[in-house]
């Protein structure tokens, strides 16, 4: 508890630092390309097109997909409103995990607020996420899913995603620094979770496929599940997801809290010795 408090206070104190460093991160990542920042949009676009082609057209998903509350959407709309979560979470987790060991050489002082490193890496991805989300919202205006009152849930789910990513990165960045293999494990795990989270297929399919009930329960334990369904409900105006599924909301925040407590504890325990593990 005490360590979580310390880490959060450190975040507050380093807010300016985190903001500036994340902007530089964004800049140094994209200055080498001629198209610069445009890649932030082009890359996900290409992926969406491919998924749409394969899963929407070739595998024939012309029927509508249930979102929540009996609201249904065409596959492509359903796909883009959810997959943006993946485009945010995946790079954040991967980069967050290697954030400390790949940058510690660059930090010339031991009293640098080390817990700010994962945060600024995540914040950099968040800028890109905002851009993509903005584009998706614009696209949705050309469909029947125009901006609705449900949209005010979106900031909440963005905050939830940030809280989730930060807590997870505290844990993963610490362990990847100590044992580099953790990072490799994480990459495989994320690849797996992409297919085990309803990004490409809707949860209703599980029952259709005849999979046992508990299988879906297990999948629900993945916090990304909560985020992607929440984003869809907000963007497509389907339901008040966080309230309608209040038990799930409680589980999600419980997960974040426990991860944050554990992450802060291990982070503070090992951070003075991060340099020794290089």
């Amino acid at each position, binding site marked *: 508890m005490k360590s979580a408090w310390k880490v959060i206070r450190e975040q507050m104190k380093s807010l300016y630092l985190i903001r500036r460093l994340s902007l530089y991160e964004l*800049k140094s990542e994209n200055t080498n390309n001629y198209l610069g920042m445009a890649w932030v949009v082009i890359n996900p676009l290409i992926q969406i097109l491919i998924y749409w082609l394969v899963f929407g057209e070739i595998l024939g998903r012309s029927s509508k997909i249930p979102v929540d509350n009996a609201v249904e959407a065409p596959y492509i709309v359903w796909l883009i409103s959810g997959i943006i979560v993946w485009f945010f979470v995946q790079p954040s987790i991967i980069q967050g995990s290697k954030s400390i060991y790949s940058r510690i050489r*660059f930090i010339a*002082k031991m009293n640098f607020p080390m817990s700010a490193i994962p945060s600024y890496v995540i914040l950099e991805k968040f800028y890109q996420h905002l851009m993509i989300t903005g584009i998706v919202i614009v696209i949705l205006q050309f469909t029947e899913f125009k901006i609705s009152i449900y949209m005010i849930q979106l900031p909440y789910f963005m905050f939830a995603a940030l809280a989730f990513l930060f807590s997870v990165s505290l844990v993963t960045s610490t362990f990847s620094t100590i044992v580099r293999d953790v990072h490799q494990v994480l990459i495989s795990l994320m690849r797996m979770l992409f297919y085990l989270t309803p990004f490409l297929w809707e949860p209703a399919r599980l029952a259709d496929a005849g999979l046992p009930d508990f299988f879906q329960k297990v999948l629900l334990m993945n916090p990304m599940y909560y985020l992607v369904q929440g984003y869809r409900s907000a963007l497509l105006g389907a339901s008040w997801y966080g309230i309608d599924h209040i038990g799930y909301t409680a589980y999600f925040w419980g997960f974040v809290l426990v991860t944050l407590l554990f992450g802060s504890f291990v982070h503070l325990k090992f951070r003075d*010795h991060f340099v020794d593990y290089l």
Partner: protein
Amino acid sequence: MEKSVIVKNVSKKYKMYAKNSEKILDLISPKGYGKSFYALHDISFEANKGDVIGIIGVNGSGKSTLSNIIAGIIPPTSGSVEIKGEAALIAIQSGLKKELTGRENIELKCLMLGFDKKQIIELTPQIIDFADIGDFIDQPVKTYSSGMRSRLGFAISIHIDPDILVIDEALSVGDQTFADKCLDKMNEFKEKGKTIFFISHSISQMKKFCEKALWVQYGHVEQYGLMSEVMPEYEAFIKKYKKMTKKEKKAFQENVRKSRIVNA
């Protein structure tokens, strides 16, 4: 005299792993596993305000480890380091980001060193002026020559204005005019009463610049005192070592190495 740095019984151990599996064993077993190497063993000394101390010793004797510990970049395994004020390390590897311009690197580096917005705005023109690389300051660092790179790196670290300076082989950068400029800056620091630790393999530079010498020999303090007293003995040791036959040298090295390795 006011003390500015008090180093007490500082040791730094590094684990030596023969295999990766040993690393895992070491992590999980409570007592630790494998052999350790003493980079520094039971180092104690004190420095006063305004001291200019040259750290001398042959390669691999722990000079850089010691300077990193004084500057607070790596923690000691045991013992305590008491520093009155801020310490900063000036080293050759500048840690600049290649894709960003010089100006952006200045802000980035200052942020990393814990400066706030106002201080950075104030410092930037001074740093640019000192680095003296002209229009290149707004070009990406990857286009810099190695000289320009080290000039910028040095300019940044010297403007941090710490109370204790640790200079690790950093004066060998740049041309003569830049080296002179740096020496001027050092003398300025000296007059301001800052404590300076100076590491260099150039004995003449040492003699000219430092008053005291700390001779680090294979992880422990061999001698600590006035430069005029320690330096002749160090030079005598070097001479003696050079005179040894190859076999003697090898036996000597082996002996020293063994004494620095312990279990767990």
